[in-house]
């Protein structure tokens, strides 16, 4: 299943195009494209310079610090790392089960986090592409353009995100880098006033979430064939799933399905993830390439995130999201939905589910219970797996007798999607790159493909901040033929 465009048979005589860091993708991504003399794409690779320093950094730290420490991995979804580490350390402190209060507060925190992250991803980072088209002027194709042309949509995006952040603040103590989840449970439950405060706007949030799904559907169906085919690839799908097959983002077994929807494995205890998933290495990338062991590296790569989760689940346990899921999967005609841009559609169905689930949880009296912690006998290792907004996230730790981490392994969502992002870029490049001159359209298409998966390569690269974009077109003799530069301001210059 790996595209033949990954490695050219004779790379020597080919022309090299380099697309430097993707704008609006935090972290450092670089795309290289190699052409033959007939200007056919012969090789396309996405390089993400993953810095594996965090696993090393965790080594030597006491396990009870981890839920707070690992949040520093990512400024966009710190809560996912917080909760994955908390779940791994639950195992370490021998808490086989959490108290109902602890489990529900953590779920609430996670719904808030997913809601705010999805709102950021869609409204701030991706809606300009979808609303204005990929060929719209760069100066206009950003969140400021959305605020000017579609103020109501922009406002809803901002307020949905703000609501999610408030859920995080109330449950974790702070909007970013809070301390709510601790090994074996949580450190605070909610007061009745806090619940009242969150209840005040949840009705409005659900309404906006419904409108958001309708908006993305309208956009999708307006250019249906294009959306179905853009950067579309056939892949396996991996996600966490509830015991009864329901959609689940906080806790469950692992489910993998192939592109036809056939089950590869199901309800797997995630602490055995090493028996089902391996992390492949390629000599041209720092980032690993995970794959399903039984299928091998060539065919076993998969996608994670909203597209995988909505495809994989049998149903949503909340009515509005379930209605939307049926319509979504109906487009696949018995297979799984493989359109890369359908990630956005799936993402907003999840956003709707999160808002419905928050409303449900806010009526649960366990939220203000007093039993916060469970502890048992100390164990030597722990695994925590959670569905982060961008996909399945694995944290695995081993500790020594003193309680100090001796080994850590993290597989973040971006790493899980590594091969899939490469495949999508290959599809786009072979469709849109031709001639000796680089086009702005190509640059945009590549970015749009990556952003469907991930606005923040930062969790994989542990780098923050936006960088300007540069494409170099180099011929087989190493001569620079063309260079297109996109500054952080959005300004584009041809510098050769």
């Amino acid at each position, binding site marked *: 299943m790996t595209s033949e465009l990954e490695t050219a048979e004779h790379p020597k005589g080919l022309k090299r195009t380099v697309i430097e860091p993707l704008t609006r993708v935090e972290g450092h991504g670089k795309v290289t494209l190699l052409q033959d003399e007939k200007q056919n794409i012969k090789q396309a690779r996405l390089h993400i310079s993953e810095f594996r320093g965090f696993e090393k950094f965790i080594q030597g730290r*006491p396990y*009870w610090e981890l839920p707070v420490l690992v949040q520093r991995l990512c400024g966009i979804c710190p809560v996912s790392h917080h909760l994955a580490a908390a779940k791994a350390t639950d195992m370490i402190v021998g808490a086989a089960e959490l108290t109902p209060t602890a489990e529900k507060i953590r779920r609430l925190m996670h719904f808030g986090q997913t809601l705010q992250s999805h709102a950021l991803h869609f409204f701030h980072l991706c809606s300009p592409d979808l609303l204005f088209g990929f060929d719209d002027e760069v100066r206009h194709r950003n969140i400021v353009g959305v605020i000017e042309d579609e103020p109501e949509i922009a406002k809803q995006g901002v307020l949905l995100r703000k609501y999610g952040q408030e859920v995080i603040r109330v449950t974790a103590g702070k909007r970013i880098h809070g301390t709510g989840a601790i090994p074996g449970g949580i450190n605070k439950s909610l007061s009745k006033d806090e619940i009242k405060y969150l209840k005040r706007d949840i009705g409005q949030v659900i309404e906006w979430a419904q409108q958001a799904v309708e908006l993305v559907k309208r956009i999708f169906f307006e250019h249906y064939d294009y959306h179905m085919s853009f950067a579309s690839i056939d892949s396996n799908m991996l996600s966490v799933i509830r015991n009864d097959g329901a959609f689940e983002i906080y806790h469950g077994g692992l489910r993998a399905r192939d592109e036809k929807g056939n089950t590869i494995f199901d309800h797997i205890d995630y602490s055995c993830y090493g028996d089902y998933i391996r992390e492949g290495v390629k000599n041209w990338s720092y980032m690993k390439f995970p794959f399903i062991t039984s299928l091998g590296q060539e065919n076993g790569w998969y996608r994670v995130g909203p597209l995988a989760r909505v495809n994989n689940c049998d149903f949503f346990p909340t009515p509005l999201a379930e209605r939307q899921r049926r319509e979504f999967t109906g487009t696949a005609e018995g297979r799984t939905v493989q359109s890369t841009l359908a990630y956005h559609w799936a993402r907003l169905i999840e956003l709707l589910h999160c808002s419905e689930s928050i409303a449900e949880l806010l009526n649960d009296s366990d939220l203000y219970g007093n039993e916060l912690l469970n502890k048992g006998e100390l164990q030597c290792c722990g695994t925590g797996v959670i569905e982060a907004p961008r996909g399945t996230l694995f944290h695995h730790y081993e500790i020594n007798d003193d309680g100090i981490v001796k080994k850590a392994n993290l597989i973040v969502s971006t790493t899980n999607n590594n091969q899939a992002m490469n495949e999508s870029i290959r599809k786009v490049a072979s469709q849109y790159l031709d001639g000796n001159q680089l086009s702005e359209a190509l640059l945009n298409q590549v970015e749009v493909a990556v952003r469907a998966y991930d606005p923040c390569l930062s969790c994989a690269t542990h780098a923050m901040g936006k960088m300007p974009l540069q494409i170099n077109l180099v011929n087989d003799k190493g001569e620079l033929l063309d260079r297109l530069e996109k500054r952080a301001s959005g300004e584009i210059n041809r510098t050769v």
Partner: protein
Amino acid sequence: MSSGKTFKLDGKAISFEEGDTIMDAALRAGEYIPHLCHNPEFKPHGSCRVCVVDVNGHSMSACTRPAEQDIDVDNSSDAIMDLRRSLLQMLFVEGNHICPACEKSGACQLQAVAYYTRMLSPRFTHFFPRRSIDASHPDIVFYFNRCILCGLCERASRDVDGKNVFSISGRGINSKLVFNSPSGKLGDSELSVTDKAVSVCPVGALLPKHQGYEKPIGKRLYDTKPISVVGDAALYQSVNRSSKSSESNE
């Protein structure tokens, strides 16, 4: 009871007894002088110098300077606060104080005094020393990165616990806390979790094991009120410990 003797602290008359230091008299009168290595339960150490005051034109540590009739003590001028800030800024760069990942954050005296003196940023180049964690003890963990060499654990272990578990060895910038045990490891020392020495650390250096962030943000010691109102961290650490042991006795 009053000796009738007084001195001036920022222009306010403070009465004192024979043998009092400026710090003793000020604390008794409810006046706050910032400090780290001082704890009224132990003999003054005079090492952190954060309690620096100006006495008749001379900079002195309030915890060691005897109170004296009619002296004029400046405890709050910009010049004095500036000196204290510099001392704190040196303490911060000399170790590795990553507050957001520290269990003591929000209940730490070093942090609280830094806020009190309006220290808003580092000023000196960080040393970034390579220091370890000693987690060999079953109940207690020691972070060398956060130790400010206040000597409180040393004094408590020697004077109250009668064990002499801690000692400061080396000189100047090479000084470090060492543990009195055959292996040099805390786990091989006589330290017990109920020892006084364990409850006096003003920073996040000496902490109970297996506990991280159990107190939520907003409920930590200095979250809502400044240290000048709340007082020393050790006061609450010993209260916590005794209430814990009384809980387990019930």
